[in-house]
């Protein structure tokens, strides 16, 4: 047994870290990400960086070889996304790693190569159009309709929480193609809807944390070539979520960032350093450290299992539950240490670019985003513990 990355993996991690720090997180981009509107992408510098990321082959690197990628194994894919997130780069995991490979596998040839190239070159982002006002965890309840009209489809409906739709080129849309109520799961089809199609509109939703969107589809006409997979066969594509992606939602570097930076700040700032002599501060640090160690190992173990060809489904779900709840707890442990400074969002006295203040506001979504934790627990209950359905 060896619980550490091997030399090659370590070298890869430091190569990614160096690239992300020096090439991606330049001061102008860091400043752009500070603006609420662009806080998880979509600004002009974001698109420059995405194209560079594409040109330098990093997005391709995270793709399976048989789909035109460089064929990194799950461990390298995990390291890549982990290091990007650790650096604070808004890695396009949903678009590039979750949806992209599914699109490459199931889209029709007429559009596939073009869209795959756009994704790999960092020129396109795909937002996910699943949730609706009455279809969240019970996604099969979705009502957005797609009706056949000759060689085209006419789409009508509304989606909500369509994050990144305001700067995406496409919506990866789940729509109902069979209205028969007895065909809930079997009446859903996936479409790729260009956001410049007439009838598409998007309004922002300001949340506690980041901006998200409601998207509207009014008599949108798209050719059948934009249908992905079989008619009424969309459910398989929806649930064909890569476990690697679920893992990346709560990857170690992403979650430990606040702890790492807080500890670094306390050690380096003469005004804050006396806090390190307080018993309660040390206790908070120790709780954070011991829980993060477990997250680090859970992530590595899940990636290792996937590398060996196992699905890693139970591990990914369990890690999602654990990591997202730890994210929330960590925000509290570190905010207690930073005290009033953890409330500051701007102005003098700001520490870590307001990370602790943002952490609390943005963190809430982790326990229900990417599959609500209750759903994940139910997966672990049946597939991990073998409890009856």
């Amino acid at each position, binding site marked *: *047994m*060896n*619980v*550490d*990355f*091997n030399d090659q*993996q370590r070298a890869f991690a430091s190569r990614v870290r160096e690239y992300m720090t020096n090439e991606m997180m330049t001061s102008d981009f860091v400043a752009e990400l500070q603006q609420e509107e662009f806080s998880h992408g979509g600004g002009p510098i974001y698109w420059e960086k995405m194209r560079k990321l594409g040109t330098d082959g990093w997005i391709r690197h995270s793709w399976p070889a048989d789909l035109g990628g460089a064929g990194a194994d799950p*461990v390298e894919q995990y390291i890549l996304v982990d290091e990007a997130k650790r650096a604070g780069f808004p890695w396009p995991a949903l678009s590039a790693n979750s949806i992209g490979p599914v699109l490459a596998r199931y889209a029709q040839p007429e559009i596939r190569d073009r869209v795959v190239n756009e994704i790999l070159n960092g020129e396109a982002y795909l937002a996910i159009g699943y949730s609706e006002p009455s279809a969240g965890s019970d996604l099969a309840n979705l009502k957005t309709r797609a009706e056949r009209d000759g060689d085209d489809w006419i789409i009508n409906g509304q989606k909500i929480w369509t994050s990144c739709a305001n700067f995406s080129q496409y919506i990866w849309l789940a729509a109902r193609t069979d209205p028969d109520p007895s065909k809930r799961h079997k009446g859903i089809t996936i479409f790729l809807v260009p956001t410049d199609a007439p009838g598409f509109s998007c309004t922002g939703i300001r949340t506690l944390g980041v901006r998200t969107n409601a998207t509207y589809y009014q008599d949108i006409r798209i050719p059948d070539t934009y249908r992905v997979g079989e008619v009424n066969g969309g459910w398989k594509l929806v649930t064909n979520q890569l476990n690697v992606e679920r893992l990346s939602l709560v990857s170690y570097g992403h979650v430990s960032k606040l702890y790492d930076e807080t*500890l*670094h700040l*306390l*050690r380096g700032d003469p005004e804050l350093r006396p806090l*390190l*002599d307080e*018993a309660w*501060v*040390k*206790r*908070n*640090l*120790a*709780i954070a*450290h*011991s*829980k993060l*160690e*477990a997250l680090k*190992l*859970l992530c*590595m*173990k899940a990636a*290792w*299992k996937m590398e060996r060809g196992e699905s890693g489904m139970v*591990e990914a779900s*369990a890690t999602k*539950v*654990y990591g997202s709840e730890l994210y929330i707890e960590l925000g509290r442990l570190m905010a207690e240490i930073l005290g009033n400074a953890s409330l500051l969002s701007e102005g003098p006295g700001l520490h870590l670019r307001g990370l602790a203040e943002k952490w609390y506001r943005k963190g809430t979504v982790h326990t229900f985003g990417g599959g609500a934790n*209750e759903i994940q*627990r*139910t997966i*672990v*209950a049946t597939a*991990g*513990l*073998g*409890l*009856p*359905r």
Partner: protein
Amino acid sequence: MDFSYDETQEQIRDLANRILADYCTQDQLRKIDDKGYYDNTLWQQLAASGLLGIALNEVNGGMGLDMESLCLLFEAAGKHAAPIPLIPVLAGAALPLQSLDDPSLTDHLNKIAEGSQIITHAPAVLKGSTLDAPKLKADYADGSWTVSGRIDNVPAAKNANFCWAMAQAGEDLIALLFSLEADGVTVESQVITTGEYTARISLDRAPARLLARNEKALSLQRIATCLTLTAQAAMATGLCDEMLSLASSYTSERQQFGQPIARFQAVSHRLVDAWIDSACLRAVTEQAACRLSAGKDTLDMDIVEQSAQVAKIWTADALHRISHTTQHVHGGTGVDRDYPLFRYALRARQLEIELGGASRHLQALGDALAHRNPQ
């Protein structure tokens, strides 16, 4: 990165589980419940099959494998609630003594491996790089050492032949080995919650031999502590697995309101949280065992100590939560002594508290994080 076990380790795990399953049936365990919860025939069987010497070098009568392999034995012992003092004898005494590379200890170590001698350890609490008030005093006169004082809750002392412990000798801190059968030694049984005997050892100028002095003695205590914490974690992993397995079976069968109670999310999600605790415990335990198995020249004691502390913090938290959760979902069945779960609840308590609970280790870890150089 590789979380798999090699073929030899798989064989060790199978062999250990096979022997322990044979000797740890409820009927057999019940027979020794009032006799100190110690089964000498099982101990002899483990010795005969070579398992006591897994991590002892060949010259010491062992297989020459590492802590990672030995942890498989601790885990199996946890899974079967085995009535034998593996942790104090192997992790507390044998491996630390072996680390001294002292040829005059070879005979002792060979005897441990063959089951003809038991050496135990009365752990002292390390405070940073020194000791928290050692309870024993040692004197050197006429070319030999004697030791005096009183120590409590010494594990396995009732069945042990020797004990090693830290003592104050004037300005010096020393590690001593003494016979429990010598003049000047009184061993009084104490019964702990599992039914096991620990002992109060009173020493009045009892003969002793010097193992190590000052810095070397402190690092002996430090390695013994790290090994013991990691062994506790490994045993806890086996305990948690078995508690969860009992709870999963029980809740899948027990019917209320016309269905198995595991179908209620209030029950199943609680068990999933226990499952996640146990996955975390397993992961940090593997890390600690792996770090301790590094070769002598690459062994970094600061890192070893931190990962052992993390493992103990998880041991304490996971045992506390999983033990209560699994008891709770069993209802009255769980507390019935005709059903095996109570053994795990009691051992869980023991492993949580012995050598310090989560709070103590959080403090030590916090001190290290705040004041040691970043890794």
